[in-house]
C-alpha cells in the first residue's frame, strides 16, 4: 500500500470525527434527558403495559395493520382484559388525545418520522 501510515492516520481521524456525537453525549451525560409526555386519558391502562408499549408500539401497530388489512381481524383483548378495536386513529388517539404532546414530542426528540400520518387522520384535525 502506498503511504500506508498516512492512510491509517486518515482513517483514524475519520472514525473519531464520525463518532464524535457519541463521545459528546457520553461526556455531557445526555442520556439522562427526560421528555415530558402528556398523560393518557385512562392513565396507565393500555392494550399492553406502558414499558412494553414504549419499546414496542411500532411493532404492535405493524401487527395491527396486517391483521386488519390482510385478515380482517379488527378486534383484540388487551393484556388488561379490555376489548380494543385495532385502530390508530380511534383507539390510540381517543386515549392519547394530544398527538403533538404524545407521539410527536418523542418522535421529534428521537428524529424519527413515521409515515402513519401521511394517510391516517387525526380526528381532531379535521373536525370543524
Amino acid at each position, binding site marked *: 500500500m502506498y503511504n500506508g501510515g498516512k492512510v491509517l492516520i486518515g482513517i483514524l481521524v475519520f472514525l473519531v470525527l464520525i463518532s464524535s456525537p457519541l463521545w459528546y453525549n457520553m461526556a455531557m451525560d445526555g442520556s439522562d434527558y427526560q421528555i415530558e409526555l402528556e398523560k393518557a386519558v385512562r392513565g396507565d391502562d393500555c392494550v399492553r403495559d406502558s414499558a412494553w408499549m414504549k419499546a414496542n408500539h411500532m*411493532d404492535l401497530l405493524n401487527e395491527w395493520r396486517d391483521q386488519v388489512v390482510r385478515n380482517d381481524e379488527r378486534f383484540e383483548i388487551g393484556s388488561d382484559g379490555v376489548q380494543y378495536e385495532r385502530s390508530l386513529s380511534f383507539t390510540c388517539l381517543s386515549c392519547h388525545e394530544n398527538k403533538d404532546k404524545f407521539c410527536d414530542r418523542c418522535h421529534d426528540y428521537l428524529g424519527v418520522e413515521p409515515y402513519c400520518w401521511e394517510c391516517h387522520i387525526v380526528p381532531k384535525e379535521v373536525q370543524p
Partner: protein
Amino acid sequence: MSVERRKFLKMAGLTALGLAGGAPAKVLGQDNAFADTAAEAVVKPIERSGALTAKRWAMVIDVRKCQEAGECTKCFDACHLTHNVPDFDNPKDEVKWIWKESFEHALGDQDHEYLNDAVKHAHMPVLCNHCDDPACVKVCPTGATFKREEDGLVMIDWHRCIGCRYCMAACPYGSRSFNWRDPRPFIEDIQPDFPTRSRGVVEKCTFCDERLARGQLPACVEACEAGALVFGDLEDPESEVRKLLAERFSMRRKPGSGTQPEVYYLL
C-alpha cells in the same frame, strides 16, 4: 428519517451482510421479533359482532332502474366522499373508484349500429369487479393486492404496494387508479374514519370492506335511492342478487378475459 427509508437501509445492510457472511434467511422475517414479545399479552381475536359476512360478495346493477334516475351521481359522490377520493379536476392525475360509462365503453363488445336506443344511450356505473380469478392479484410482485379467500373481496395493502403499476396494466376493466401526486390537498371534505393515500400507491374500490365489518352496506349501495345497486352473497341461493340473476338477463364485462367478474349488469 422515515420508517420506510429506515427499513430499506436496514434491509440493504442485512442483505450485504448476508452476502458476505451467509446470514440465515430467518433474519429477514421481520415478524419473528414481534412474535416473541407478543406472547406475553393475551392476544386472541374475538368474534365479530354485527359484521356483514358472505361466502362470495357480488353486486348486481339494474341498468334500467339506474336509467330511470336520470343524471343521478349519488353513488359516485357517496363512495368518493366516504373514501377520501381526491378530485384533481384533470384526467391525467385522476383517481376514481366508481364512475359512469356508456354501454359502448362498459360492455363494448356487444355494441352495434342498430342497438335499441334505450341500451345504446344507457349509462351505468363501473367499478372494480372483484373478480374470482383476478388478473391484478396474479401479477402483483409483492402480494400487496390480494383476494380475501373468505368472501372474495379483492383488496390492496397500501402499506406494501411499491407502485409498480403492473396491476393497472393487467386489469381488463381500467378499474385501478394510481396516486400520481399527494392526494390530500385535493380532498375537500376529509373523512377521519378512512385513511387518505400516500402518493405512489395504486387504489380502487374495496366493496367497502370497512363498512361491511361494521354491519353496513357499501356506501354506493346505501346511497342509491333508485334501488339499482344490489349487494349480496352469491353463494346464498336465497339472496337478492341470486334472485335477480335468476329472473333477468344479465351481462358481465369482458367475460372473454377469463377473470370471472362478480359485478353483474341487468339489461
